[in-house]
């Protein structure tokens, strides 16, 4: 009977092999499917005296054509692509937020802010130009805050995205654990679970896109999924992930109990986490640096200037100190004040008489209260200071106004009967005092060889002025460093003297800017920068001058900030911004490039994988035809055996 058995084995085996081929064909487009093929082998032979007799064919095994190394490589690559594509997607978005090459960019807002100052310097008394400048300043502050706001929105969005990806991870890992269980159950029965393995492989691939993993196969057929931070799947058990944001705003990935932290190397979650914790924070910080640099420098200069009215009758600081009795350098001010002098100019509005007062402040010992006391106690003037909610309030008595200008005292005194008047802007390096002293006696503009000597505070002669017969009383004489003097007619005698404070910085303590007295901006960084309420309500307060309405000295100083190449991090404000834009561009361009190259590698690796594991429909069709023929041949053999049987039976039957 073995002849029929042989025929039957041929038919059955061909049928099964055709099943394998058609299974391959129907899964030709299934993601992660691994080609299977039937392994045929001759059945154990019958031992006869003539030797061994074949007993037909059997299907011993259905194998999967796979390459574990390639699958591992593809998983790693999938993690890298995951990070790179998230990175390039979000950097592209960030680039749009900064938008540096477009019209509404911060770059343009900053340029037009400085253009506004420049225009102001040409028409300081013009109200409509002041209003235009205010608009430009508001656009600048709006742009800062818009970008910060968009960065915040991006952070919220990324947080949601991380949340979604983490629940994806949790779904995938629990599926993997389930399949692990099924595979192990089959394996104990000695059954190879091909399609389940494929399914698990596909899940592992999806998981690797989210985070990089290492896969260890156990003897029972289960896999353990490891990350650098710990196991995600170990056999049939799963560690669920969650995320946590600490008080400093750092987002970390933890287990579901939020106890142990997971650190990933690559993958979408890691890229999102980096973007959340580093990239956005980094650009946010750079923006804050820029904004606070602008606030500080503009306010420092603005606080020493004078608006159209020429002075204040009352002013209150914007920023409060932590305590009125704390030393000023530890009173919680965002701009750190330093020890130095503040000059307060008090003008009698009816007589026009100007008094310049100098207050020396030691920020390590002086408090807001003692500062207020010093202002309050200024001899001969009617300015007073009092404390209201840890802020400084300065008010002038009726008939007086005050300012913090660094303008020179126009009428510093007289030599004999000749009164001196001073003009110009002091351009020296640091604040100084010039002492004018008559070197001889005589009549101004008449006595031959009559001279006045000018010494600075260290006793060096800075100028010797001829005021004798070569001088016409009332003419302007150039002293030094931009300071000019004119003497009225009169007589002087040897030793007559007066002194003049020549200052270019009327607040070397920076306390005015720190406290927010006569400042242009308020706020501390990019998230809260605004034009101060007072200036917004009254553009005449914009301090373009140091004295009269047509004076543009302070506006020129503000305009010079644009070219200050040491304004921030050893470069100008605009260049700092360009650096931000180009470093962002650099980062984005690198991300695009690495995404592109990873994708190219993936394509070629996938092709490699397909060479081994992919289904070639043609090949399967060939197999089908082959097994079809084998089936037909076996069937023919059975019919021949059948014919032989028939003959035998009819002959002897």
């Amino acid at each position, binding site marked *: 009977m073995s002849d029929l058995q042989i025929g039957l084995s041929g038919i059955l085996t061909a049928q099964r092999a055709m099943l394998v081929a058609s299974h391959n064909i129907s899964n*030709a487009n299934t993601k992660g499917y691994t080609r299977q093929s039937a392994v045929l082998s001759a059945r154990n032979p019958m031992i006869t005296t003539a030797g061994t007799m074949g007993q037909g064919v059997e299907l011993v095994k259905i194998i999967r054509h796979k390459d574990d190394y390639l699958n591992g490589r593809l998983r790693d690559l999938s993690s890298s692509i995951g990070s790179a594509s998230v990175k390039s997607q979000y*950097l*592209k978005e960030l*680039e749009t937020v900064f938008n*540096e*090459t477009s019209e509404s960019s911060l*770059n343009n807002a900053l*340029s037009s802010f400085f*253009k506004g100052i*420049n225009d102001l310097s*040409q028409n300081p*008394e013009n109200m409509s130009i002041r209003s235009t400048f205010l608009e430009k300043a508001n656009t600048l502050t709006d742009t800062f805050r818009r970008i910060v706001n968009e960065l915040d929105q991006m952070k919220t969005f990324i947080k949601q995205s991380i949340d979604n990806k983490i629940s994806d991870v949790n779904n995938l890992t629990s599926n993997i654990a389930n399949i692990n269980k099924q595979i192990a159950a089959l394996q104990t029965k000695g059954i190879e679970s091909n399609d389940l393995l494929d399914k698990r492989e596909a899940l592992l691939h999806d998981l690797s896109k989210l985070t990089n993993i290492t896969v260890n196969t156990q003897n029972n057929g289960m896999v353990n999924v490891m990350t650098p931070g710990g196991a995600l799947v170990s056999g049939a058990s799963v560690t669920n992930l969650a995320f946590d944001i600490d008080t400093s705003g750092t987002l970390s990935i933890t287990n579901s109990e939020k106890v142990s932290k997971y650190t990933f190397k690559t993958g979408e979650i890691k890229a999102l986490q980096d973007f959340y914790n580093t990239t956005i924070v980094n650009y946010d910080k750079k923006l804050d640096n820029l904004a606070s640099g602008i606030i500080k420098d503009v306010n420092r200069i603005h606080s020493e200037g004078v608006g159209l009215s020429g002075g204040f009758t009352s002013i209150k600081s914007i920023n409060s100190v932590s305590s009125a009795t704390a030393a000023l350098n530890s009173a919680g001010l965002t701009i750190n004040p330093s020890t130095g002098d503040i000059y307060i100019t008090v003008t009698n509005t009816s007589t026009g008489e100007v008094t310049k007062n100098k207050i020396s402040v030691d920020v390590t010992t002086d408090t807001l209260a003692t500062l207020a006391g010093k202002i309050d106690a200024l001899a001969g003037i009617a300015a007073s200071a009092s404390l209201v909610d840890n802020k400084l309030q300065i008010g002038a008595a009726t008939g007086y106004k005050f300012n913090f200008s660094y303008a020179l005292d*126009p009428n510093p005194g007289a030599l004999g009967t000749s009164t001196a*008047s001073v*003009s*110009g802007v002091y351009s020296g390096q640091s604040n100084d005092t010039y002492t004018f002293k008559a070197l001889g006696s005589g009549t101004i503009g008449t006595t031959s060889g009559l001279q006045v000597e000018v010494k600075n505070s260290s006793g060096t002669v800075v100028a010797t002025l001829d005021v004798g017969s070569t001088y*016409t*009383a*009332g*003419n*302007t004489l150039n002293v030094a460093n931009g300071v000019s003097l*004119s003497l009225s007619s009169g007589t002087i005698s040897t030793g007559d003297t007066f002194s003049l404070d020549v200052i270019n910085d009327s607040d070397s303590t920076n306390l005015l800017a720190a406290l927010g007295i006569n400042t242009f901006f308020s706020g501390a960084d990019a998230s809260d920068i605004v034009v101060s309420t007072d200036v917004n309500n009254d553009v005449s307060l914009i301090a373009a001058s140091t*004295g*009269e*309405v*047509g*004076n*543009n000295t302070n506006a*020129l100083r503000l*305009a*010079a900030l*644009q070219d200050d190449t040491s304004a921030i991090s050893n470069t100008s404000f*605009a*260049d700092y911004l*360009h*650096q931000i*834009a*180009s*470093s962002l*561009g*650099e980062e*984005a*361009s690198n991300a*695009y490039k690495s995404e592109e190259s990873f*994708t190219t590698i993936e*394509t070629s690796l*996938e*092709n490699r994988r*397909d*060479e*081994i594991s*992919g*289904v*070639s*429909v*043609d*090949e399967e*069709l*060939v197999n089908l*035809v082959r097994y079809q023929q084998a089936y037909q041949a076996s069937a023919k053999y059975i019919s021949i055996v059948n014919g032989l049987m028939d003959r035998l039976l009819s002959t002897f039957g």
Partner: protein
Amino acid sequence: MPFRVTQESLNRTALSNINLNYKKMQEIQEKLSSGKQINRPSDDPSGARKVLGLRAEELQVQQFLDNTETAKEQINYTSNTLESIQELFLKIKNLAIQAGNDTLGQSDRNIIANELDELLESVLQNANTDNNGRYIFSGTKTLTSAFTATRDSNGNISSVSYNGNNEEIKYQIGPDTFIQVNLPGGKLFQDNKAFSTLVSLRDSLKASTFDPTAFSNLRNTLDTATNALSTEITRFGAKANRLEMTTNSLGNSQTALKELISYTEDADIASLIMDLKHQENVLQSSLKTGAMVIQPTLLDFLR
């Protein structure tokens, strides 16, 4: 392992190549339609940085050019006013020469005095010239008229006082370069001496006894005032020249900067069109080979 090629890998290769080609086409098209090589910093980070820097520089040059134009306008305005004042002073000088003639009688001198008075009023009017609401001779007190006249009971000017100050107004016309655009009247009119001379000239002509020596002294003082005017006119002329030269050199740097920006940032249309054509061909052939490769299977032939 035999080298196997599956449908899937053929499809994948064809698809990824077609995608790549479309992407390249899109890049070229973006450059062509915007006319720019750099459309966002990531297109060329170092180029973008350069362009941003150059643009900032160009903007600043434009600002200096604008400032120079405004300065020019103000300086010309002041120059013109100075010339009118100079003309008035020349007329006054001629009148004074005429009046100094001994042969004139009191009535003739009165006529000249009246004429002189008119001219004095004109000088005052010119000295109080404003440019768009800003008094040009008031120093930085630009909203205060420069001179105020005190008049006697007949309405004649008895004295003139200066309300302005001696402060300069400067405009920035280059990096660390400033130009003074105003002329404080105190200096121009020698602390009002010019006016008091004119008043004295007029009064001495009207006086019942004419003092030729005093009159000739006054004429000398008048000359000093006229000379001061001429000096200022020359200085303002020189300033106008300097501004003209500044405009030229700023204009040159602006052109150079614009060229540099265009060189860095603008797309080379001709070569881009060549690239586009080339890319079109590549795309066409990748589509065609894709169509050829994807379709046939053994099924087509197993009939």
